[in-house]
């Protein structure tokens, strides 16, 4: 995946020079280990700013919402599925986009890696399969496969589903992945235990809404928690209001979420917010055989009605 960057720069330079697009949206090197910052490049001379490595976990589809320019965007498997969703939901037009597809090997989990070391991590470098972590007085090599973001470890759509040009050959998709082991474990809990589990899960939430704001699906002009006329949800630290936010947000993403993991990556309190969206992803898969963002030709199941839709859940 490290070799991708030359190709990314080459394509970016070309589409800018030829005037195919007005800007390229990608990543520039971050100021911290394991962080890159989304950025745009408008002049072909500036493409040297672009980087690509295992720290590009933010979903760039989030930066396309309602933009009017012609844009080249760098898209991993998950980003590409969110781009499909964006196109279906009229947040951007297909012909505005030049999609630079990146077959992905997964992004690394910065919180997990940080938690493995007592001391502060000062530098992280990577080669094809290894992540080398350095700090004051230590250096350790980790296998990349062991420190992937959880969503990447169980990803079954690493290759872009829509693109104009690929930066490499497709990568092999992971097979025989059990995507919902954790969801089943929660489903099986007794109600009291389940309630306690969610209470614990959300106890650290500070309502910064980073999960929502990192999510390409959360583009409502005014989110329901920000509505003031009338106001739907309390603004304080009442656990009922916090739960309301997370549950409703997850339901709003049902049948649309691609499990890109941007929400969880963004959370400053390390809350496993995917717990909610994954349950709904599983429900949509089981009820409708649906995976979000796989095709421009099919509308999401909660957006359509068919006489033969399953209705077992109506008791």
């Amino acid at each position: 995946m490290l070799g991708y960057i030359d190709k990314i720069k080459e394509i970016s330079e070309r589409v800018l020079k030829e005037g195919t697009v007005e800007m390229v949206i990608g990543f520039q090197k971050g100021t911290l280990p394991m962080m890159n910052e989304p950025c745009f490049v408008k002049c072909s001379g500036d493409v040297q700013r672009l980087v690509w490595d295992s720290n590009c976990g933010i979903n760039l589809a989030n930066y396309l919402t309602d933009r009017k320019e012609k844009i080249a965007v760098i898209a991993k498997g998950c980003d590409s599925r969110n781009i499909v969703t964006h196109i279906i939901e009229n947040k951007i037009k297909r012909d505005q986009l030049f999609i630079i597809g990146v077959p992905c090997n997964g992004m690394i989990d910065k919180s997990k890696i940080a938690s493995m070391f007592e001391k502060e991590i000062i530098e992280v470098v990577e080669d094809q399969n290894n992540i080398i972590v350095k700090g004051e007085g230590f250096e350790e090599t980790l296998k990349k496969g062991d420190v992937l973001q959880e969503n990447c470890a169980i990803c079954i759509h690493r290759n872009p589903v829509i693109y104009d040009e690929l930066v490499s050959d497709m990568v092999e998709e992971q097979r025989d992945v059990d995507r919902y082991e954790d969801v089943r474990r929660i489903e099986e809990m007794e109600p009291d235990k389940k309630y306690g589990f969610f209470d614990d899960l959300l106890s650290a939430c500070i309502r910064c809404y980073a999960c929502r704001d990192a999510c390409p699906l959360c583009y409502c002009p005014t989110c329901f928690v920000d509505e003031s006329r009338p106001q739907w949800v309390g603004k304080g630290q009442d656990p009922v209001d916090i739960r309301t936010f997370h549950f409703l947000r997850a339901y709003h993403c049902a049948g649309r979420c691609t499990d890109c993991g941007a929400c969880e990556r963004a959370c400053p309190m390390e809350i496993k917010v995917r717990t909610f969206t994954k349950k709904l992803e599983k429900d949509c898969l089981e009820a409708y055989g649906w995976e979000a963002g796989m095709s421009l030709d099919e509308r999401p199941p909660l957006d359509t009605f068919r006489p033969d839709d399953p209705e077992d859940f109506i008791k």
Partner: protein
Amino acid sequence: MKVIKIEKEKWDKGVEKLNGPLRLFGPVKDGQFHNFKELDKNQQPDLNFLNTRLSPKSTVFPQSEVMFEYSLDESREDHHIMKEIDQDYSPRAVIGIRPCDAKSFLLVKRNFDTDEYKDPYWIRAFEATTFIGLACNNPCSTCFCTSADCGPFHEEGLDLLLVDAGDYYLLKVITSKGENLLKVADWETEADADTSGETSGNIIDTLKKEAEAKITSSVVTDRLKEQISLELYQAPFWEDAAFSCINCGTCTYVCPTCWCFDIQDETHGISGVRIRNWDSCMSPLFTLHGSGHNPRGTKLHRVRQRFMHKLKYYVDKYDDGIQCVGCGRCIRLCPVNIDIRKICEIMNNYEPAACACPA
């Protein structure tokens, strides 16, 4: 200058003695990180941390704070009357606060305690608190306190400064408020009673210099004051600087110097409370007018506001440095890696394009 020597095994005992006469707040590890919590009886602060995930501002300025209660029950004589609720402003101490976070209270005080306006909630909580700092022997790579008029052993805002000197602690007495705690905790052995060894002042100085030398990160602020506000405001770099921002509230909520709040009435049935909650200039609702107009309608407006407030408006208004103590939390926790050090440099070094008009 009075310095107390505390053998490490006597530390816990002293904290135990303080817990009761005072409400104690200290760093507690919960999951992967530390945060300031009110300590239970017999609970010890965990001093083995770099810095807490959230700043300790909540010990004086809670994220949600009930101010009044009211009843809508018209059979009651006091219906529809806002009544102040009882708050516990008994003496309390925050143990293990880092010097940067302690100094931030003095910056925040400029907002809550002025000649014109006095915020009774903040002031009462602040005055009830004794701040026992923990000097940073090992600052983080994102700490830039030394270029933000602060430092790893900085004393402003502290009543006592605890220094880990290896086998024992040195506790430097900074204010009389701090001194009053010594007796309660039974920390009364003066460090320099035995004159044979190195003086405690020298030991602290050496550790301080070592810590300061470990701070490799900095901000440049020398030209902020002379910059013209309007030119900075209209500068083209904001488009680039604001691009990656997702407008979440992380930077403002983790910041020790962000003081903005919102006041809400929450009615449940026939009774209700008036609450104040932290608010964030990153949120569109922060400035939404009743008319529907929003003077900070775009993300660029909001990002610019946050940095202009901290690094320009505050600088101009108080003429005493930036509204930042260099704790680095916003850098470490920003989901998209917006870095205040970088923005500060751009603002500081900004040169408006030379006038293109013909002569």
